[in-house]
């Protein structure tokens, strides 16, 4: 993800797969429909979201605002890079 080649959209998401309960809020309320369910289950038996269409992700963090489980958030590459630099 940090690899520049992989940078397709304007942003990306970070998912805590094991915390996700598969409610699909993030998927349904992503303005660009960039997310989809993973085919895998997590340990609790839930499907978690993956960035199926990374091109479409704007890093707007709408997914993060909706997630009731704090299991996902989005960020813009711009901001990620800044953070990285600041480290």
């Amino acid at each position: 993800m940090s690899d520049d080649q992989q940078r397709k959209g304007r942003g990306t998401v970070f998912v805590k797969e094991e915390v996700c309960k598969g409610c699909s809020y993030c998927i349904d309320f992503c303005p660009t429909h960039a997310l989809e369910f993973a085919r895998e289950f997590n340990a609790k038996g839930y499907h978690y979201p993956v960035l199926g269409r990374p091109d479409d992700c704007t890093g707007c963090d709408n997914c993060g605002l909706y997630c009731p489980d704090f299991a996902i958030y989005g960020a813009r590459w711009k901001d990620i890079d800044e953070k990285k630099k600041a480290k």
Partner: protein
Amino acid sequence: MAKTEIRVGGLGGQGVILCGSIIGKAAAIHGGKHATLIQAFGPEARGSACSAQVTVSDDVIGYPYVKNPDILVLMSQDAFNQFIPQLKPGGMVLYEAELVKPDGKLPEGVRAMGVPATRFAEELGRRLVLNIVMVGFFAGVTGLLPFEAVEKAVLDSVPRGTEELNLKALKKGYDFGREQAV
């Protein structure tokens, strides 16, 4: 004074309690035995682990808890991990073959048998009847209760209009169990 102790484990929403309840009802009402069912939710009721303890006995049942079951009926990996250590030496494990992977974690001398209950249920058109498949499987493998008793208990317990589907699920599990049991 034959007494069989059973633990049914799985996740909330899988119909774990109903599964235990049908076994108990078959024994207590239609099978001429005594039965006690204890439901255990976690402290937080919903969404998490869920299990039932069923004691089936020829005599009046005193202590109602199942500490070391003779039989485990398991529908989730979490339940498997949690309950296997409690199993009586030489006990029996019945599990949902797609959700539970025993992976060599079974104690010696234990008989373990899987059933693709979810798949069976989906084939019958409703994933929800997976617990009834498990009941049938239990009845088929263990032979603890007459099939008719279990059948009646299922009919008593399921919502009106779903009888046929549930009986099919029961039969499916039962037959699969009979085969395995042999």
